[in-house]
C-alpha cells in the first residue's frame, strides 16, 4: 500500500483558502465554547442563595446606654457606642485582615489580636498595620429600640441622635 504524504499533495489556492476559513471557524467556535464553559463554570460556583443570618438585630433601649459607654455585642461582632454627638455602631472586624478586635471595658482603645492594629472608640486607626478605620454600620431607632444592620455600611461620621 503506497504511503500518501498529504503534506506533498498539491492543493488548489481556492481549496487552501476554504480550508483556512474552516480551520478559523472551527477554532473560533472551540474558543467561544471554552469561554462559555468557563463563564458558566464560574457562574455555577457563585451561590445564588445564601443561607446566612440576617444582619439586623436589636440592641436595647438607648436610655440604658450612658454617655461614653461602649457596648460589645460579641456574637454579632459589633460595638455600639454612645459618643458625645450621639449613638453609632462600629463593626468589630479589623479592616486589616478580618480578625475580631477586642475592647476591654473602661479602655480607650480597640485592639486587634492578629497583627497588632489599634483603633480608638470612634473607629480611627491609632496604630497600623490597618489603614482604614473600623466600618460604621447602620443604626436606627425602631419603636424605641436601637437596631443594628450589619449588612448596611454607613458614612464614618454618621451618628444617631436620640
Amino acid at each position, binding site marked *: 500500500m503506497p504511503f500518501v504524504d498529504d503534506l506533498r499533495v498539491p492543493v488548489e489556492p481556492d481549496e487552501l483558502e476554504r480550508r483556512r476559513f474552516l480551520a478559523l471557524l472551527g477554532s473560533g467556535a472551540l474558543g467561544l465554547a471554552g469561554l462559555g464553559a468557563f463563564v458558566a463554570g464560574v457562574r455555577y460556583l457563585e451561590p445564588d442563595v445564601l443561607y*446566612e443570618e440576617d444582619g439586623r438585630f436589636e440592641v436595647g433601649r438607648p436610655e440604658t446606654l450612658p454617655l461614653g459607654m461602649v457596648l460589645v455585642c460579641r456574637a*454579632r461582632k459589633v460595638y455600639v457606642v454612645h459618643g458625645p454627638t450621639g449613638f453609632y455602631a462600629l463593626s468589630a472586624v479589623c479592616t*486589616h485582615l478580618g*480578625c475580631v478586635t*477586642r475592647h476591654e471595658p473602661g479602655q480607650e482603645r480597640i485592639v*486587634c489580636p492578629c*497583627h497588632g492594629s489599634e483603633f480608638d472608640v470612634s473607629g480611627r486607626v491609632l496604630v497600623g498595620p490597618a*489603614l482604614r478605620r473600623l466600618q460604621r454600620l447602620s443604626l436606627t431607632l425602631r419603636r424605641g429600640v436601637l437596631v443594628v444592620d450589619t449588612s448596611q455600611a454607613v458614612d464614618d461620621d454618621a451618628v444617631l441622635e436620640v
Partner: protein
Amino acid sequence: MRNIARALVRSRVWRSIVRHGFPDSNRNRSLAVLSSFFLHFHPVKVRLRAIKFTRTFYLGGLSAACFLILTMTGLFLMFYYRPAVPHAYNDMKDFAFVVSSGMFLRNLHRWTAHTMVALVFAHMAWTFLRGAYRPPREFNWVIGVGLLVTTLLLSYTGYLLPWDQLAYWAVTVGTNMVAAIPVVGGEIKLLLLGGHSINDNALLRFYVLHCVALPMALALGVGLHVWRVRKDGGILLPPLPKSDVAVATPTEDAPEPDPAAVGLDAESVRLVVTQEEGADVALDLGDEPMVMTFPHLLLREVVAFLALAILLSVMSLLFDAPLEGIADPSRTPNPAKAPWYFLGVQELLRYYTPVVAGVLLPSLCIIALAVIPYFRVNIERPALWESAPMRRLALLWLAIVALSGVFRIGATGMVWSIVVPLWIVGAAMSAGALPWRGRLGAWLRTRSLPFWIFAWFVLSAITLTVIGALFRGPSWRFTLPWRDGIY
C-alpha cells in the same frame, strides 16, 4: 516450600501476570523494569553516581513518598470525616477518642503534610544549588515551582477541615489576603468561600479542593515532572572527569566501582539507555559506571521510603496533632498564628498592607523563582572582582542601600528581617574582593549573582519565619520564646 514457590512461579496464571523469568539474570532484571507498569518510569540501568544518597538526599523522591502516605492516610480519614459545620469538629474528637487508631492516622496525616512542605522546599533549594534548573530543564523547574504552590495550597485547604479555632482564624486571615488582590480579589474570595463568611459552603469547598481537585493536579504534575527528568537523561550530574585530567580536578565523586561488583557484563551492555531522537541531551555514557535498576535503585527507594515511614510513624505515636476549641467566629485567639510555612508572610503583614505583604511580595517571589532558568546569568562566568574591584564594590553597596530603601517604602518601620540578611549577603559578596587565598576565598569569588539572590531569599524567609514563630506574642508584639512566644 521452595518447590511450591517454584511451581507457582512456573504456573500459567503467574506467567500470564509476570511475563519474564525470575530476576536473577540481567536480562530478566531489565525485563522486570521494562515490562512493569509500576516501574516503567525507571530506566533499565542507572548511573551509579545518580543514585548515591548524598547526590540528591532523595529529596524529590521523599516528597513524592510523603504524597503517597498522605493519599493513603487521607483516604482513611475520609471514611469518618464529614465536611459540615456541626459535624467536622466532632469527628475530630471522634478520631481522638472513639475511632480505633484514629488519632494515629490523623497525626500521621498532619506530620507527613508538614514534612512534605519542608521536603519540597529543601528539594527546590538543593536543585537550585546544584544548578539542575539550567537548559534543557528550565521548564521542568517551572513545573516544580507549580508543584510547590500546589503543595502549599493543599496544606492550606487541609488546615480548615478540623474546624477548630486555629483552622478558622488562619483561613480568615488567608482569605482576606486573597480579597486584597486588586480588582478580582473579592470575586475570588466569594468563589472560594461560597459566601461572605467562612461557613458550611466554605468548609465543603475546601474539602473538595483538598481531597479531589488539588491532589489530582499534584499527581498529574508529579507525573509530568518525573517524566521530564527521565526525558532529560535522568538527574543532573557534573561531567565525569576525563581520565587524563582526573588528577588535576579535585572531585567528590564516588570512586570507580569494580565492574564485576556492580553487575556489569557483556549481556547488559546491549541494553543501554536509549536516547530520544532530537532531544537536546548529551548523554555521554563513555566512562560512566552504570548499575541495573533492579535491584540497585529499587532497593534504595524501598529503604528510603521505609525509613521515612518509620520516622513519621514514630513521630505520630509520640506527638498528637493539635486541636483547639471549636471554631468561634466571634472570638479571635490572641495571637492567631498561621502554620509555620506561612508565618513569614504573616510577619510581613506586620509591616506592609495586605496588598504588598500578602499579594505583591509572594507573587514576585513565585515569578522570580519561575523565571530563574530563563536568565543565563548563572552559567560559568568570570569572577566578579577580576577587573575594577573598587568601582564594582561601590556599585554593589549603592545597589544594596537603594534596595534597603525600597523595602522601607510603605512599611510601618524598617523591615530588619529582610534588610539585615541583605547586608549579610552583601558583606559575603564583598569579601570575595579581598585578596584571600585558599578554598573559602575561591568559593566566595566563584558564586554567581543568582546564588547570592537566592541566599538572600532563603535567609530572609528563615529570619521572618523564626521571628514570626518564636518572637511574636499576643497582639503580635515582640516577645521572647520562653516567655510567651510559642503557640
